[in-house]
């Protein structure tokens, strides 16, 4: 089976609109993906017919909402290959997931002088929570570089796993360079040394099949809105052995067993890590989005996007005034670039927008990588399952116009 991109495009109503009088060419999927009609319908249906708070009432609507919400845990477990759905903590996205690991796990298991190993191409969401621990506990952040092509050699990461390293936190796919990281080799080496691993799946889970057991990671956070689901939804896989080492970090309703004036006892995991009323409808929509992706097939999505990536790479390579950051041969369909001459990334994105092409311009929440690359800002075109080669051609034409305008 292959992927029928025209049929898929028909499932996303927003792709039919125009921008600046031109057909929308949406290439900002790395920031957030658009939503298929089934997800939009699920949101409307939940609020129209099946809405109440979850885990609390015994009335009909509360039961329906709870069943629908809890079913998503199983969908996510299937999507990630997690053996047990109790290893899935529902949350608002990767940022919350990584903060939970920082406060709930690292704060209890690391001491001053311990090291956390990061790659230079991490997103700020996988940097700043660790800086908190550096500031508050004296944790040391240790960095590994990417090479000139933007590749991360797993051996370089393994060689950096000294005796003080207690956690390796590395992205599966760079949100700037599109580099795919061999996280499996890294995680298995870390496991053998008793080092915990967090694989940032924000981008990776969107573009390729994921099996957390095969990867051998301890923590794998994902973000719903990048996976064609609603914003404010997300989850993190936490391997059961690591979950047992965690303490709750947010207190509130739903995560407790009993509360008195003098004492508190907690709900079982994963509920222990889900304080307060969650994003009920967002999560229900997230489940529908993952079912939609699995219905198309992650291998099919990956094959389609790899073909788009190879085509885009060859077309962009033909523009000798364009500097594409990250040149690994099998990269995900994410292209960051700068242009020779006077054009700033914001200039380029302004002109592209006039041609209906939506890209991101800026530092992409990746300060250390920007510093490593020696640039202050880039434009980024990031593709999703509904993008086509014809859209790559529109991007190229728009870039040629921008180059002509700025010289």
């Amino acid at each position: 089976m292959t992927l029928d991109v025209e049929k898929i495009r028909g499932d996303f109503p927003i792709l039919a609109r125009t921008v600046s009088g031109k057909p929308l060419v949406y290439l900002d999927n790395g920031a957030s993906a658009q939503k298929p009609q089934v997800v939009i319908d699920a949101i409307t249906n939940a609020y129209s017919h099946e809405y109440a708070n979850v885990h609390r009432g015994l009335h009909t609507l509360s039961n329906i909402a709870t069943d629908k919400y809890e079913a998503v845990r199983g969908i996510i477990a299937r999507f990630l290959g997690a053996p047990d759905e109790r290893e899935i903590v529902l949350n608002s996205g990767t940022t919350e997931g990584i903060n939970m690991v920082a406060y709930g796990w690292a704060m209890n298991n690391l001491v001053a002088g311990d090291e956390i190993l990061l790659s230079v191409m991490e997103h700020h969401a996988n940097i700043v929570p660790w800086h908190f621990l550096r500031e508050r506990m004296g944790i040391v952040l240790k960095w590994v570089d990417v090479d000139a092509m933007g590749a991360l050699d797993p051996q370089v990461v393994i060689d950096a796993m000294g005796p003080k390293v207690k956690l390796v936190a590395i992205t599966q796919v760079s949100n700037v360079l599109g580099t795919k990281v061999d996280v499996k080799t890294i995680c298995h080496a870390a496991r053998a040394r008793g080092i915990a691993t967090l694989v940032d799946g924000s981008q990776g889970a969107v573009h390729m099949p994921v099996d957390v057991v095969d990867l051998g990671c301890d923590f794998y956070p994902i973000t719903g809105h990048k996976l064609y689901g609603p914003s404010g939804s997300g989850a993190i896989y936490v391997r059961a052995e690591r979950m047992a080492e965690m303490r709750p970090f947010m207190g509130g309703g739903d995560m407790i067993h009993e509360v008195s004036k003098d004492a508190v006892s907690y709900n079982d995991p994963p509920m222990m890590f889900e304080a307060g009323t969650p994003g009920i409808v967002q999560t229900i929509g997230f489940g529908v989005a993952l079912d939609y992706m699995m219905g198309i097939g992650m291998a099919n999505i990956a094959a389609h996007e790899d073909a788009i990536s190879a085509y885009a790479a060859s077309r962009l390579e033909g523009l000798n005034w364009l500097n594409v950051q990250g040149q690994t041969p099998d990269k995900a369909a994410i292209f960051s670039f700068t242009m020779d001459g006077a054009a700033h990334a914001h200039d380029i994105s302004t002109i592209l927008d006039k041609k209906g092409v939506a890209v991101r311009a800026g530092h992409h929440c990746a300060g250390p990588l920007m510093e490593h690359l020696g640039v202050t800002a880039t434009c980024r075109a990031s593709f999703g399952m509904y993008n086509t080669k014809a859209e790559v051609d529109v991007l190229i034409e728009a870039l040629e116009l921008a180059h002509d305008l700025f010289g």
Partner: protein
Amino acid sequence: MASTAFEEIVEDFEFLEDWEDRYRHVIDMGKAMPPLEDAFKVDTTKVHGCSSQVWLHPRIADGVFSFQGDSDAMIVRGLIAVLFALYDGLPVGEVAAVDAGGELARLGLNDHLSAQRSNGLRAMIERIRIVSSEAAG
């Protein structure tokens, strides 16, 4: 009625029919604008800390407002040149009353002023108002 210099820009724009020509013109204005000396590109003149940077160096003498500005984004430089035509030589007491958004709309460039734009132009106009109001006392 805005300044003569600005009205001349408005006239130029009236001859430009499509957006490409308008942008080409703005970009050319940006390229032609003299850069702000590096010595003035400091924290106190920096208007916006985002990835496209904007600087404003006000020059006020004898109650007359002027400024030098710069940006690392070329379209923003062009827009700064437009703002220069709008504000240069005004008595400080009259600067705050200029409806910059309305004037830029006459050029079809007001979409650069939406709140989400991180190009610093809106913040620059705000800084011009504050600086001139303080000088006016």
